[in-house]
């Protein structure tokens, strides 16, 4: 949706109904209490989608908000946050939680709103008898709702992904487990579909793997990611994350063989696939057998009339590049030892820093 505001909306931005709209919005955006994993599905729509006089629609966890309602709510929330910064006693933490959520819904890059939420959470977590898991789960569902909804800017927002990263460090700090595979499947993959080539979403996936202390089902994760990549085969970020996983996994040859099968049968000749495969070869992750298949498939695709001209150039470049940069499998461990961080390092660092 464009950031521009049309004249009709602009004239409706008067102070009379700001508080009313804000209160209706914040009440509507309350997370359902059960089942406890349900996220909100939020959409921002143009005015003509709504019945006359209505600006917010709700159907269980599906919520549609008009752009007008969002702008009005923001204009009410913003000075509330400013006032709170000057005098925290003016508002309860629930008040500020609503205000900051509204601000982030309007502007996902509003760092100060996100940091205010972190400060509120920190106070809550440090209270005696605080139920850490409940507090953290609630916030995770809130940010996950923003990251997986059909909100173009939110799904890729570095501020929101960083907020989630900090939340997960709090799980580690309070000795709570994180579902790595589940989070990647339900949050990263979904955000990755909502916003293709979602750089920060897939960075977050790497963070989850690194912080996990190897405590997750690698086979299952590889299967989920490999399937996602083939279904979203023009998405370089997915393929790049698959490379990241394969570089540290003894089952890499099996997965690569499966991927090559699918590339051949689906006749995938697009650039992302043919950057992913050569990069694996350069990383020394491809066996000789796999490399021979790679060359064979490239030749088949080149010879097909249905392969686009641009893709043929990509295919040729892929093999030429490999001739210079391909690394034999034996070098793999050496190369990766030099370049990859200790998988325990991230986890230990969070524990030590006591963030």
């Amino acid at each position, binding site marked *: 949706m464009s950031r521009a505001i049309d004249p009709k909306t602009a004239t409706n931005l008067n102070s009379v109904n700001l508080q009313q709209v804000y209160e209706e919005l914040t009440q509507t955006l309350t997370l359902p209490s059960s089942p406890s994993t349900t996220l909100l599905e939020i959409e921002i729509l143009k005015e003509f989608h709504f019945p006359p006089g209505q600006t917010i629609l709700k159907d269980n966890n599906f919520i549609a908000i008009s752009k007008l309602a969002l702008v009005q709510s923001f204009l009410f929330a913003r000075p509330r946050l400013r006032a709170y910064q000057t005098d925290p006693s003016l508002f309860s933490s629930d008040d500020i939680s609503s205000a900051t959520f509204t601000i982030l819904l309007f502007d996902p890059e*509003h760092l100060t709103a996100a*940091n205010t939420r972190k400060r509120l959470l920190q106070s809550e977590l440090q209270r005696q008898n605080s139920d850490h898991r409940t507090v953290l789960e609630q916030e995770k569902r809130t940010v996950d709702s923003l990251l997986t909804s059909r909100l173009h800017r939110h799904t890729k927002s570095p501020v929101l992904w960083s907020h989630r*990263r900090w939340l997960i460090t709090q799980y580690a700090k309070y000795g709570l487990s994180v579902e790595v595979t589940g989070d990647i499947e339900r949050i990263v993959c979904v955000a990755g579909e909502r916003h293709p080539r979602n750089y920060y979403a897939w*960075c977050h996936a790497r963070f989850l793997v690194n912080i996990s202390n190897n405590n997750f089902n690698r086979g299952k994760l590889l299967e989920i990611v490999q399937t996602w990549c083939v279904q979203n085969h023009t998405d370089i970020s997915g393929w790049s994350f698959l490379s990241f996983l394969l570089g540290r996994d003894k089952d890499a040859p099996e997965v690569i063989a499966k991927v090559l099968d699918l590339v051949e049968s689906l006749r995938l000749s697009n650039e992302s696939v043919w950057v992913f495969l050569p990069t694996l070869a350069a990383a020394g992750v491809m066996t000789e057998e796999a490399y021979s298949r790679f060359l064979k498939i490239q030749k088949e695709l080149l010879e097909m009339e249905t392969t686009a001209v641009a893709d043929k150039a990509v295919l040729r470049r892929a093999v030429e590049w490999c001739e210079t940069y391909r690394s034999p499998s034996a070098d793999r461990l050496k190369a990766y030892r030099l370049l990859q961080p200790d998988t325990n390092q991230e986890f230990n660092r969070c524990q030590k820093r006591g963030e």
Partner: protein
Amino acid sequence: MTDVFQQLPEELELATSAHVKYIQSLNTRQDEYDYWLTEHLRLNGVYWGLTALHLLGVPEGLPRSETIDFVLSCQHEDGGFGAAPGHDAHMLSTVSAVQILAMVDAFDELETRGKGKALVGKYIANLQNRQTGTFAGDEWGEEDTRFLYGAFNALSLLGLMDLIDVDKAVDYVAACANFDGGYGVSPGAESHSGQIFTCVASLTIAKRQDLIDKERLGKWLSERQLANGGLNGRPEKKEDVCYSWWVLSSLEMIGKTHWIDRDRLINFILQCQDTEKGGISDRPGDMVDVWHTLFGITGLSLLDYPGLELVDEVYCLPKSTITRIFGP
């Protein structure tokens, strides 16, 4: 080279005065929705606008005294700067503050009216992870090579590089090199043109370009140019004018600018202009903004477009500013 520009139709010239007017008008939109939507990056926006004005030959385009006042009003007690008054301090806005003050030659006012260079240096240096060498953006710990580059950029301008462990940071950047030739936010991350710029520029500032596989990187970067002449940031992404900076400056730093077709890129950038109201957008026909206006202009400057001041490919500041600070 001049022949190419003489052949361009009128609508494909740089609409300099329109762009100047557009940038100058941005600060006056106090009541507009768009102004609120971008408050979280106001200081960055001033840096983008001011740099563009300098390159367009209008360095006095924003009032100097008010600009300095605004920058200093964003400074926190710990020396760091937020994006606007009332916004939390962060590395990115701190770097923009230092870059703006560098351009208007106001480091002395930072001493007399602000919290002083030393405290700014301390704020930045405290964000270094002394174990790994990289930098966080703020106290909440997100690490990204953008922040490492920001630290190198600002601290070198302030003459305070000795406050950080440069060697460790350099090792970290080297560890971010990927097998495809690119660099990412951290070791093992996806290659991305923006991150490539930050890593290459950091190594350039530290005089460690010996660590770069320039051939491999150059190949990856040269593949960013699409049929329409524009550059993208990663494989199969759409062209975007801002990559005229991230990709082009990286190529310039490793001496491989000639690996892309310059004329077609110039043509593409010029088509992204709004020649009437001013400003440049990400691709032809889209809404303009000051970010894309700056990076379209820096791209043209790197390509020696006539009438533009030279931009420094490492600092993304006018070369005249860099010469004044570091000497010729």
